[in-house]
């Protein structure tokens, strides 16, 4: 393969690459042996510790599935509530009135600058101080509230970038046929920009799913991660095995979401119905509107905070 760094390898480069591969395999083998030895000397690789996950359904029905259900409930609720809120604030940031832009911008930047854990702790205490929500559902409320506050502001940026990715001519044409501002937004800009935002919204779902685990560790919300302790207590101190299974479930779930986002993005790039522009969540959570192939330069937003939370 040719990349910006090197040409397609010739005869000497091929020999050199084989040498590198051999060295690398040696390093990998050393690391693998070191990990294996560490686990084995503590008896963490004994079949008895791993057996429950392979021979019975009990760990899944008693611990993992209820936990995963709570994780999914919290994540889905957060997204469903945060999306309309985010749309409102994203559109408000594009308003023609300076004070609307200022207020919306301040709110969005405020909640993006604060760790989601701080928001969750605040929500948890606020519900116990000012409401009479029973303490067994309070963790769920607190987790969802914290996630909504933070993710609505991230989604607001996604909505803004999506609307800004449309060609100017769309707004001009809407004005030319006499549409009002609200009509332009409702009938022209929003419907077209939804396709551009979809991949980024699905990617944000990964961040939300990952952040629900905070509630399990800090607010005793009984989600997937919090099933580790009872499991390792029940199956003979199999901490490593329990963590491995929980991590595998998280990776599978999020990998499916990431793949879906990638597939959507590729599909939309080829699509006839959209402008071909896609809002793309960059590494660290910055957003950029990627224009259609051959559609000029990609505009990079300058954002003051990244996603990728806990």
């Amino acid at each position, binding site marked *: 393969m*040719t*990349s*910006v*760094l*090197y040409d397609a*390898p010739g005869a000497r*480069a091929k020999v050199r*690459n084989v040498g*590198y*591969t051999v060295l*690398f*395999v040696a390093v990998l083998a050393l690391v693998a042996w070191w990990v294996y030895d*560490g*686990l084995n000397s*503590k008896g963490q690789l004994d079949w008895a510790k791993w057996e429950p996950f392979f021979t019975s359904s009990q760990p899944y029905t008693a611990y993992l599935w209820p936990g995963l259900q709570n994780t999914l409930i919290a994540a889905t609720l957060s997204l469903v509530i945060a999306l309309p809120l985010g749309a409102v604030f994203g559109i408000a940031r594009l308003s023609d009135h300076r004070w609307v832009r200022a207020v919306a911008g301040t709110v969005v930047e*405020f909640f993006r*600058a*604060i*760790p*989601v*854990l*701080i928001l969750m*702790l*605040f929500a948890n*205490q606020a519900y116990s*101080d000012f409401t009479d929500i029973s303490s067994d559902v309070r963790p769920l409320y607190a987790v969802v509230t914290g996630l909504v506050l933070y993710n609505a502001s991230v989604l607001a940026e996604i909505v803004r970038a999506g609307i800004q990715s449309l060609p100017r001519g769309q707004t001009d044409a809407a004005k030319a046929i006499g549409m009002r501002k609200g009509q332009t937004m409702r009938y022209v800009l929003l419907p077209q920009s939804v396709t551009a935002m979809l991949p980024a919204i699905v990617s944000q779902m*990964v961040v939300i*799913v*990952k*952040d629900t*685990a*905070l509630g*399990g560790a*800090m607010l005793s919300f009984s989600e997937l*991660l919090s099933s*580790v302790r009872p499991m*390792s207590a029940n199956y003979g*101190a199999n*901490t*490593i095995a329990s*963590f491995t299974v929980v*991590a595998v479930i*998280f*990776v599978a779930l*999020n990998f499916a979401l990431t793949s879906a986002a990638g597939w959507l993005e590729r599909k939309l790039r080829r699509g006839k119905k959209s402008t071909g522009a896609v809002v793309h969540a*960059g*590494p*660290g*959570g*910055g957003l950029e509107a990627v224009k259609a192939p051959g559609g000029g330069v990609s505009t*990079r937003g*300058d*954002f*003051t*905070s*990244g*996603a*990728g*939370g*806990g």
Partner: protein
Amino acid sequence: MFDFLDMDALLGAFWVTVKLTVYSAIGSLIWGTLLAGMRVSPVPLMRVVGTAYVNVVRNIPLTVVILFTSLGLYSTLGVALGGADFEAINFRLAVLGLIAYTAAFVCEALRSGINTVPVGQAEAARALGLSFGQVLTLIVLPQAFRSVVNPLANVLIALTKNTTVASVIGVAEAAYLMKGWIETYAALIPIAAVFAFGFICLTLPTGLVLGWVSRKVAVKR
């Protein structure tokens, strides 16, 4: 109203947050650069391993990673990283977890920087007869570094906020202190305001300064 305000404790907690951020930033920059090198190398096996690491670690919640360093590495396997007492051990474990997690994002940021350099630049350089080292140091990396400021700034800000997760294993940083205070004092709103303000003081200047730098050095194409 603000009678809970123990300035020494507050500054101490935020100092721990800053220390966590700085150590983790340095560590993840090193490890992330190595990973990025693996992902763009001509050796297929290195690319596979680098990609696998990034895809796995990116999709595990940081909370799981950090809790694992404490329950898995320390309690089960006895990895203490040379810490003398409980406090030092937990701090080091938290830094280890943050490095392992953040490096995946640093790697992706660096790789995106290298990918913004058009292949034509390197082809032109090779056509002039420059060696691999010259192509890398004179043509590709200078352009890649300039376009990498913005994504790296985002990763740094996310890392600053992510240090709060260290409170899960009892590292006495800002979120840990806040949790203690709101359980002790009946002054939720002022306490939350103080901690929100503290984090805004940490993240907002970083974003503004690095955003300005990234616009300053960006390659105009």
